[in-house]
């Protein structure tokens, strides 16, 4: 194998933090190279430097033997480096071909381009019709558009940032086939992912970053996933312990829940039925955009529904507002940390007040008891190991993982009878994610009913007792997690389980 990209001593500092400190490694031609690290380890900065979005403070890169220092993504693409971002940049109202044209410097004629798209998509087994409107495509198909956009440039190096986080298991298999074919043809792939099992099966080499430095490298297939995680975190990893539970009485009951989405691109909920018992963790999987946000809003009380559609311990709460539900013990933690679960520019104390007011009795006749709120905020910070200089700091100043610990801790410490969380560990590093999962499981053990909505199937399999899938606004019947195989789940996610209702999927 010949050397494709040599990275030598790259350093990039931002105010207050060194994102990359003397990073060096080599990517061979045709190899699938994993970049591993916790959130904030410096993966994104490194990749942005390779793609020309960020300029390094010092250090150098060599691509195929010549000096390489892209000043902008255009230069990187011209040199044969392409990237598929975690968040797509596609226009919903345009067709696949039109979207691809927009990103090209010298776009060929539409008909010729459509032809090229067809041939590339056939060659790499990524079926895609160039004339379809993006808005009608599934997330997996949208990703294909991004990948084909890159492949049309015949890249020597393809960078992929968390490509599988939004895919169903079947879609992941298709993607991996494509990646293998690419690497067989000599295209190198720089692969960023949190999913260690994936990296073990897919990647030839892994470079591990911690606090901006390269701390290790290895052949992933030779290590266990747990060992890889420990290399990332730098310490022995605590895996949440799952105990056999005996579910008690029904606490949360959702009956024939129908909610029309307020968002024109959202998904309306259709006849959702769910029963959650005391001591039980129910996982709700599925690809984002299938009604997760709408479900959360309907349970939190931000979208009121018909009175009897949601019940807590037999009391109808469907038309109650969020605070009235909190009083009855139904607490929620939304997905979006900044701007929904927490106000970015408000202090942690004020953010503790945000949902804690009712149950923690942080006000008296409308007058706020700031001393109690500070005590509550301090308790969250201490018990959930939130790293911050103080509770007077703004929510925005916390890292994603720390803020997530704060947001989850804020609800857990209020002794909920039902806790519904959406994407509890999204973008959170391994150690923090383990702590959050453990806290949720402990909560169930103490008798609460816990609902976890997540896109991360590994997470759901690890913590949930029963698992259901939300697909196009329908919820499958929750099955015992222990009895489910990955294939079963994939079929549930694809909507095949929903039988006759699945006709609109193929439309």
């Amino acid at each position, binding site marked *: 194998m010949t050397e494709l990209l040599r990275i030598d001593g790259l350093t990039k500092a931002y105010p207050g933090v060194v994102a990359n400190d003397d990073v060096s490694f080599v990517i061979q031609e045709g190899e699938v190279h994993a970049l591993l690290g916790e959130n904030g380890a410096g993966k994104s900065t490194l990749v942005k430097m390779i793609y020309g979005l960020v300029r390094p403070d010092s250090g150098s890169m060599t691509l195929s033997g010549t000096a390489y220092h892209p000043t902008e993504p255009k230069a990187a693409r011209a040199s044969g480096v392409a990237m598929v971002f975690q968040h797509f940049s596609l226009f919903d109202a345009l067709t696949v071909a039109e979207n691809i044209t927009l990103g090209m410097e010298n776009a060929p004629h539409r008909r010729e381009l459509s032809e090229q798209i067809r041939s590339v998509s056939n060659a790499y087994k990524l079926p895609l019709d160039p004339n379809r409107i993006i808005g009608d495509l599934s997330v997996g198909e949208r990703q294909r558009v991004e990948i084909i956009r890159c492949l049309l440039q015949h890249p020597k190096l393809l960078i992929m940032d968390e490509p599988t986080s939004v895919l169903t298991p079947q879609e992941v298999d298709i993607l991996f086939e494509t990646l293998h074919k690419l690497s067989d043809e000599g295209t190198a792939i720089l692969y960023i992912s949190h999913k260690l099992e994936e990296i073990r099966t897919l990647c030839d080499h892994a470079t591990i970053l911690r606090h901006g430095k390269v701390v290790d490298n290895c052949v992933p297939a030779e290590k266990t996933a747990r060992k890889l995680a420990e290399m990332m975190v730098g310490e022995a990893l605590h895996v949440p312990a799952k105990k056999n539970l005996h579910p008690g009485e029904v606490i949360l009951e959702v009956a024939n829940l129908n909610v029309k989405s307020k968002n024109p691109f959202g998904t309306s909920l259709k006849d959702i039925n769910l029963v959650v018992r005391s001591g039980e963790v129910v996982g709700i999987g599925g690809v984002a955009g299938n009604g997760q946000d709408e479900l959360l809003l309907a349970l939190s009380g931000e979208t009121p529904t018909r009175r009897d559609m949601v019940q807590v311990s037999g009391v109808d709460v469907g038309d109650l507002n*969020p605070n009235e539900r909190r009083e009855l013990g139904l607490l929620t933690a939304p997905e979006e940390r900044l701007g*929904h679960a*927490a*106000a970015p520019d408000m202090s942690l104390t004020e953010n503790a007040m945000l*949902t804690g*007011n009712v149950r923690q009795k942080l006000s008296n006749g409308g007058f706020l008891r700031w001393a109690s709120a500070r005590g509550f905020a301090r308790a969250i910070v201490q018990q959930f190991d939130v790293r911050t200089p103080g509770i007077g700091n703004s929510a925005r100043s916390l890292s994603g993982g720390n803020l997530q610990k704060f947001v989850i801790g804020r609800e857990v410490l209020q002794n909920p009878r039902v806790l519904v969380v959406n994407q509890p560990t999204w973008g959170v590093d391994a150690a923090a994610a383990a702590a959050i999962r453990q806290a949720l499981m402990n909560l169930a053990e103490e008798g609460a009913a816990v609902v976890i909505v997540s896109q991360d199937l590994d997470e759901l399999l690890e913590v949930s007792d029963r698992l259901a899938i939300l697909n196009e606004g329908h919820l499958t019947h929750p099955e015992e997690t222990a009895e489910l195989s990955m294939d079963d789940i994939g079929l549930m996610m694809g909507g095949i389980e929903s039988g006759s209702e699945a006709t609109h999927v193929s439309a």
Partner: protein
Amino acid sequence: MFRLEARPQSSNFWVIVTPLLAVIATMIAGGFLFATLGKDPLISMRMIFWDPLFGDFAFYYRGQLLTKAGPLILIAIGLSIGFKAGIWNIGAEGQYMIGAVCGAGIGLAMYPVEAWYVFPLMVIAGGLGGWAWAMIPAVLRNRFGTNEILVSLMLVYVAQHVLSSASLGLLKNPEGMGFPGSRNLSQYPSAANLELIPGTGMHWGVVAAFFAVIAAYVLMQKHLIGFNIRLTGQSPRAATFAGVIPKRVVAFCLGTSGALAGLAGLFEVAGPAGQVSIDFASGYGFTAIIVAFLGRLNPFGILLAGLLLALTYVGGSLAQQDGLPAAAIQAFQGMLLFFLLAFDVLSNYRLKRVKRAPIQKGAA
């Protein structure tokens, strides 16, 4: 070369220092303006900032200061509550006029009854008038999603016509020899809002303004309503999550700011102005926007900013006697807001000196 760089947290130091910087920059730029008009800038500045406080006739002007600051502070306090929630009432000037017309209307309707309850009834009517005028944009926004900035601003011009019509028709002084304008309320003892301590300029409106400062502080810092208002301004989705009903916040903020502007109008019409007249409105409602921002939407900051702007009013009229055009004084006040907003960048960003990176040659 300098570059602006976002601060992780807004700087408390700069939040306090920027208003001072803005005042200094306004003095410098205003000085140039006055110099081009052929006035000695130093003398003009002394006339505006020094003479009303410490000059030969300061005993007269000091009283003027509180008289001018009272309505500015009262209106600005109301506006600041809405601004904190991201609800932009730009039409305080109109609410001020309607408050004056309603309050004076009640007083004039009771003329010549002399009783203790006349003035309190006028105060209530003034507040309600301003409240009702501000509820128009509130209801339109809540029902139809209109923009409260446009609606409240446009209603200022409607209010101006209501005021003119009242002073020419309904409220015209029957003994006024046909001149436009109502009876003089300051000559109707039960309705007059006179100086409480002679020579200080302190009337009930100033007392109300001081009270509003303290009440606003308690509301915003110590009460759930204020917390919900701040939360709405910060992050509307987080506010809904916390159980806030956005429409109620809109109604509360617009209603409160309208009521306070209406009160300011009533205290003015029953006191310093004395009568409802076509030219009653004097721009307090618009200047109060400057006061609210100059005071950083903080009640005590607004108190100081109100006094400062009142000073430019009083000093401005002094300078006008010296030959400076009134428009120059208004431009001077406008500059204050301009510089404040410009320097405001510093509380959220810092200047960083960057060395121009050496351009690498032979880039691929």
